């Protein structure tokens, strides 16, 4: 069936590269076209948070900044718990294109397995609520 591991899109925008860079890296930009609001600590290792009406939010960890051509971050995989180690990597690449800018976004890493996930998937583990409830019972002296 083919596990969709990588998504790639390119759009051409009729604006100079600096404007597009600002739109994808600043609070004013990200909080307007992407989220309904944003917080951005623009440095490698910094966090950015996008919030949407209705309470959904995305936590980005900034991984790559090469102004004004490359902006990369990782974020969690939708549907998986917030503390799951698996994250996808999103990279925006900007290139001058005549009077405008060509913007490519690549998101990759959907098909990764956490190091022990495959074993967990197949080896009859007793993880999950049952063992956590057992631990709670033990903790409470049951």
């Amino acid at each position, binding site marked *: *069936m083919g*596990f969709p*591991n990588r998504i790639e899109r390119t759009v051409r*925008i009729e*604006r100079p590269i600096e404007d597009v860079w600002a739109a994808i890296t600043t609070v004013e930009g990200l909080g307007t076209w992407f989220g309904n609001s944003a917080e951005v600590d623009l440095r490698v290792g910094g966090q950015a948070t996008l919030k949407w009406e209705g309470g959904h939010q995305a936590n980005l960890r900034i991984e790559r900044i090469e102004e004004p051509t490359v902006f990369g971050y990782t974020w969690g995989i*939708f549907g998986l718990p917030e503390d799951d180690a698996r994250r996808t990597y999103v990279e925006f690449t900007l290139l001058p294109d005549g009077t405008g800018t060509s913007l490519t976004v690549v998101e990759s890493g*959907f098909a990764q397995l956490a190091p022990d996930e495959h074993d967990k998937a197949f080896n009859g583990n007793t*993880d999950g609520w049952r063992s956590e409830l057992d631990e709670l019972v033990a903790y409470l002296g049951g």
Partner: protein
Amino acid sequence: MADQQSEEVAEAVFAALADANRRAILAALTAKGPATVTELAAALPITRQGIAKHLALLTDAGLVSPEPGQGRRVRYHLQSGPMRVAQQYLAALARDWDGPLAALANHLNPPKPVRKA
């Protein structure tokens, strides 16, 4: 290769979910916790033989596992690992970049107001 493994795991989940009886069994184990064949047969409109057949398939696929026990007292419980791999697959399908990129282009190039002659 992780890709291949992920694909096999996700495929097992989707094959399991393609059958209404297996969905009912997984849903029952999710809602009420580990159960024996007898308990599942009592709770669902599926024969004992049907339950046993589906549980064997789900066990082979790694989606449920039998707890230690004997004969009819063996309880089966869910394995969440494969479901999370299937969730990754669905997350890729559910990721919408076209909408945000259109919004970005629109943000930078506001449509010009249409003037009436």
